[in-house]
Every structure is written in C-alpha cells, then in structure tokens.
C-alpha cells in the first residue's frame, strides 16, 4: 500500500517542484492523464454553457383578441421561442379534455384532437400531421410548442384569422385591427421634439420610472413597424415600444438626467408630440416647502408633465404625489356589485390629478399608473425621489352604514415608545421606517384641513381626522395623509362612490384643501 501511494504521488505531482524532478517517462504519463482530463473538462464546460442557454431568458407574449387580450409567458430554449400549449388553446378557446403520458400529450379542442410528443417536431391534428420548426419541449412538466405553432397549427383550430408577424411577441386573432405609427425627431430651441404619427386615434397617460418616461397609449392594440428607435441626440437616446404587460406604451429614454418631458396629443389624438426640454434655472425653494432628508443618490428622473399641460414660467411648482392604493392582483376591497377598490381609487386619483393640474399651482406625480402591483417601498421611493410637498394615498373600504363617508388619517405608530421626541434636534440621517416622524405635525395639520374641507360637502359624512399606523404613510418624506372613502364592502353596492360628480367633488375639495394648506386660495 505504501509503495502504491508513493507511485500515485509521482504520477500526479501536486507541487511545481514535484513536476521538475519527474523523470521523462513520468512526465509523459502526467501529460497523458491531462489529455484525458482536459477534454472531459471541456465537455462539462460545454454542457454547462449549453444548459444555461436553454433557459437563457423568459419574456411575455401578448394575444390580442377582439374583446380581450392575454399575456402568456414566453420561454426561450436553444434560441427558439416557445409558448405553453394549453395556455394558447385556452386563450383562443377551451381545452375540453386531455390525456397525458410520460412523453406524449393528447387533448381535445372542440371537435379537434391534437397530439404532441416531447422532443418531436410533429403535431397530429385529427388525422393530419404537421411539422413545426422546432421540437415540442416539456420542461418541468409544462408542454411548450415553438411559436410557429401559431401559423402552422392554430389556423386549423379556429375559424378566426390569425395574424402573426414572425419575430414579434404579439399575435392578433379575429377582427382586431392594430394601429401603427411612425416617428420623427426634431431639435427645438432648448430641447428636442419627438413626433409620433399614429394611423388612428390614441389616448395617453404618462408616468416616470427609473429615469425613463412611459407614455401609455390606451386600449387599442398597436403593431409597431419598428420596436426600437435609437437617436444620436443630446436630449433623447431611445424610443421603445413595449406591450409586454398587455398595455401598449412608448418608453422614452432621455440622454441625460434633469430634463423635463411635456407630452401632448394633437390632431384629435392621431399625433403625439413629446417635447423634452432643459428646465429653466431653479431659483431658491420657497420657505414653506419642507426640505426632505432622504438622499436620492442617483440622478432624479424628471416628472412627466402629466396630461401635457403647459407649465407656467417661474419658480418650480411644488410636487404633490398621489398614490392610488392596491393594484394588479391586489384588488383591495370590493363591493357587492363588483366595484374594486383598486379601480375606484385610480379613478379618484385621476380626477384629483386633473383638478390640481387645472389650478396650475402644483406638479403631480402618480405612484401607480395602470393596473400594476407595487410594493410599499416602490411607492415610497417614487414619492421621495420627487421631494414632494404633500403625499396623499387614497383607499376605499368599509366605513360603516353611513355612506358616502370619508376618513382622513395621518400616521401614528402602534407603540408610543417608537415615537420621536420633537424637542430633540432632527438627526442628520433618518431611518427609512422612521421618516414619518419628521412630518408628524404637518401631516396632522394637512389631515385637519382636508377633513374641514370634506365636512363642507353636502351629503358626505366625515369624521374627525384619525391617527393610525397606515403602512403606506410610514416612509414618505413629506406631510402625508391617507384618505379612505366608504363604504366599499361585499355587503353593499358601491352606489354614490362610482358617481362621476361625487368623485369630482372629492377631487375638487382635495385640490382646494392642498391649496389652502399651502396658503393660497384655489
């Protein structure tokens, strides 16, 4: 055993000095061993490389139907795009029954029987066989078909027309007429103008996130001629079309930070004009505006001038952040007649925004644009980045039998021990979860002003402003209040809450209260 062990050490020297004293024959054996190991290592590396490329990335694919749209996750395997078979069929119609075996799947779609086999390009549709561009895959038990299934097989399964342009991530099924657009960039005196000419009317909503501007184009399906437009321009670097979440939108990337966007629709909605301008030199902030303590670090994305309203010249207007609670899969409360809190508060926020912009005394930033899930941190970050003058978050819920009713909340910690001693000087750095402490008094004042204004509305029940540990207010670096509107509960219909005139009254009062609190008269 001892000699064997020594021989092994000679054949596989561990140290450099060992190699140097090797006899020629021993060195040859060492090289021979290496020549075996190296290809194996290369093979393993290649396998790992190929393995990673099989699931390199995933994306979304949008199915546009005459009355609906569906977003289906897209998988990229070996450079080919794949879609889940059952999701496709359930989007277009309904899978009646299916029979799954280890390497084959048989399913019934209406009167049609479809059979696929794993790693086989052939698809059997009733008695005919069709060839796909790539083999059917079955990773993690999910049956995936190449995207050309949409043009090869799908037209045989439905009587509707299927329009799919190869390379894109969207398909139009049935009587869907997508609009398209062209883009032109012009230089202006202190910026650049992007002109987007659409083939039909669009609507527009704006948002800003991560230093980019989002121009949502409404509900019409859009099929762009080009997905991305790159510009060699000092103001705008890229215009990208995106509908990965089912919402067609243009994403405008500024070439540098500190620019302002002024979007507007023209020609009845067929032309979108997006002016990207250098802001005028900022004069000192008015004394009334609270200076936030949270450091932003990165260049601040310029807020979209919502709705394309021209902003008056002069000192920068204070920013009001409006937060429509919930969103996406978090629907919040719901009424007996199916009104969801997320939709109701989004409507009210849109009206408050319009009222504030009409007064031309505030700039408005929305934390949530569209029906998306947002974390509290995302909302707070979006608000704090804009150094807001005030923050209003809107909720709807069960406020008892007296309806309509409004309660305004400011933040109160669950335990007095957590409260900040106002007599102490403000610390240089404030913990994220203690930011509310800095604005407690102002938040209470704002809540009081709002409550007084709401109390003047006829037919509306209001309570004294309340203090509660509302999570959405905790880390906002501004005077912040939550406005809860009720009653929205499964036991009753939403009633007045959905009435546009009621919502507009609420919006007008909120805007007036903000102006009163600032010291003006709206």
């Amino acid at each position: 055993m001892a000699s064997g062990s020594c021989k092994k050490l000679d054949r596989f020297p561990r140290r450099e000095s060992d190699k140097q004293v090797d006899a020629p024959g021993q060195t040859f054996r060492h090289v021979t061993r290496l020549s075996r190991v190296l290809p194996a290592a290369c093979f393993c590396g290649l396998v790992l490389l190929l393995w990673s490329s099989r699931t390199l990335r995933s994306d979304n694919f949008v199915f546009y139907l005459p009355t609906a749209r569906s977003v289906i996750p897209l998988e990229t395997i070996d450079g080919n795009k794949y879609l889940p078979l059952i999701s496709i069929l359930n989007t277009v119609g309904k899978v009646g029954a299916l029979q799954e075996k280890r390497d084959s799947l048989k399913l019934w779609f209406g009167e049609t029987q479809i059979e696929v086999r794993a790693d086989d390009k052939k698809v059997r549709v009733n008695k005919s066989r069709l060839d796909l561009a790539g083999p059917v895959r079955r990773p993690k038990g999910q049956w995936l078909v190449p995207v050309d299934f949409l043009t090869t097989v799908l037209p045989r399964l439905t009587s509707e027309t299927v329009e799919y342009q190869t390379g894109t991530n969207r398909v139009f099924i049935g009587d869907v007429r997508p609009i398209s657009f062209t883009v032109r960039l012009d230089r202006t005196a202190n910026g650049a103008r992007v002109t987007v000419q659409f083939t039909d009317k669009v609507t527009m909503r704006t948002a800003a996130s991560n230093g980019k501007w989002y121009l949502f184009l409404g509900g019409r399906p859009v099929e762009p001629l080009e997905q991305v437009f790159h510009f060699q321009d000092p103001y705008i670097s890229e215009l990208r079309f995106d509908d990965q979440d089912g919402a067609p939108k243009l994403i405008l990337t500024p070439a540098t930070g500190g620019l302002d966007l002024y979007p507007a629709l023209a020609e009845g909605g067929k032309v979108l004009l997006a002016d990207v301008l250098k802001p005028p030199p900022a004069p000192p902030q008015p004394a009334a505006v609270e200076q936030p303590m949270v450091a932003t670090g990165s260049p601040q994305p310029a807020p979209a001038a919502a709705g394309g309203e021209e902003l008056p010249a002069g000192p920068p207007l204070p920013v009001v952040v409006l937060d429509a609670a919930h969103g996406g899969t978090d629907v919040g409360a719901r009424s007996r007649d199916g009104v969801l809190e997320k939709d109701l508060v989004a409507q009210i926020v849109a009206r408050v925004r319009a009222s504030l912009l009409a007064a031309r005394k505030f700039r408005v930033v929305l934390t949530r644009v569209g029906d998306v899930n947002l974390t509290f941190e995302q909302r707070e970050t979006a608000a704090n980045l804009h150094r807001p003058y005030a923050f209003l978050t809107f909720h709807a819920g069960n406020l008892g039998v007296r309806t309509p009713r409004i309660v305004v909340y400011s933040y109160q910690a669950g335990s007095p021990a957590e409260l900040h001693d106002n007599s102490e000087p403000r610390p240089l750095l404030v913990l994220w979860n203690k930011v509310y402490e800095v604005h407690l008094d102002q938040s209470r004042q704002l809540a009081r002003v709002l409550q007084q204004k709401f109390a003047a509305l006829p037919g509306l029940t209001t309570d004294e402003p309340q203090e509660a540990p509302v999570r959405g207010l905790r880390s906002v670096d501004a005077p912040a209040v939550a406005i809860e509107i009720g009653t929205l509960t499964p036991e009753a219909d939403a009633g007045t809450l959905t009435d546009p005139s009621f919502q507009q009254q609420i919006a007008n009062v909120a805007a007036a209260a903000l102006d009163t609190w600032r010291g003006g008269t709206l």
Partner: protein
Amino acid sequence: MSPRTKILMLVLLVILAAGALYLHVLTQRVSFQPIAGSGEEVARTRLSEAALQSTAGPEQMATLYFPSFEQSTLREEKRPIAWAEADTDRIRQVLLALIEGSHQGYSRPLPTPTLIRAVFLAPDGTAFLDISTLATGDLNSGIADECLVVYSIVNSLAANLPAVKRVKILVQGQEVDTLNGHVDVTGFFVPDPARISVGP
C-alpha cells in the same frame, strides 16, 4: 436459476406487490381525506383542544373586544373562560375566543381558519403572536377595519393579561408589512382604549 434463487425472487415479488397495494390504499386515503371541516367547527374544535390541553382552573370572566365594522369601533364582551396557568396558554385562549367569534353578534376579527402557530411572552412584556397566512386572506379590507382587527387582539390581550404590555404580530413566523395591505405591523402595538366604544 437455482430453486433457492427462484424462491427468493418470488418472495421479493410478493413483497413488492404488497407494497404497491398498500401504497395504493394510502393514496386513496390521502385523496379522500377531507381538508377541513366548516370554519365554525374548526374554531370550536381548536378552542376545545386548547382548553383540554391546558391545566384549566375555575372559570373567570374574560373581557374581549370585538370589532363592530359597521360602527368603526371595538365592542366589549364578557365571557367566562377557564384560564390556563401559563400566560402563553392564556394568550392562546384569548386568541381562540376571538377566532371563535362574538356571542353578541359583533364581527369576528380573525377568520375561522386562522391558526395560532406560536405564542411567546418576553420578560419585558412583549407578546409575540405568530399566526398563519389564513388569518390575512379573508380579512375585511380597509384601513379602519384592519385597525379594528389589530386592536381587537391587542386590547383583548392587555385587558386579560397584566403581563402583556405590548404585542408584536408575525405571520407564518415572519415579520410582514401588513395583514392585508393597510396597517403597519412591523412595529409593536400597545393597547389603545380610545378605539373601544361603550354603551349601545
């Protein structure tokens, strides 16, 4: 193949067949096992179990605070409870009584499928309550309602257990932002008598 090998193979086959049959029976049992009874029954069963497991003493009047969502307030309800000896068991008893629901028609703060996963009482008087995610799924939504839910628990515990000074709520053993999107439960809660309404 020798006779001995054949016998061995036969025995192995019989064992394998018996195992497969037993597995099939087990699968059937698992498939047809009811997941849960009605919520009311589950809550009452758990309450009874807790009472049986604890060393119950003589019954005493407990003060519970149930939400009245319609009136946006907490309502007091007295109920006899045979208190256990340990404070953590008493905390469980209060929580189970809240889950069981009001006998006077007030609302239930936590839905009946709620499980109390763990309860700790720290020497400084902090009660840590670890409840299941089932507690958050069916909660009434809204700031006012969620406040009532939290303070229903906190005020009820403080009213019956002098050792409980403040309460920390965990869900599935983790600290969470909110129970259902509104009230910040990352911190501690002390009782808030202002949320209790007396009289009719």
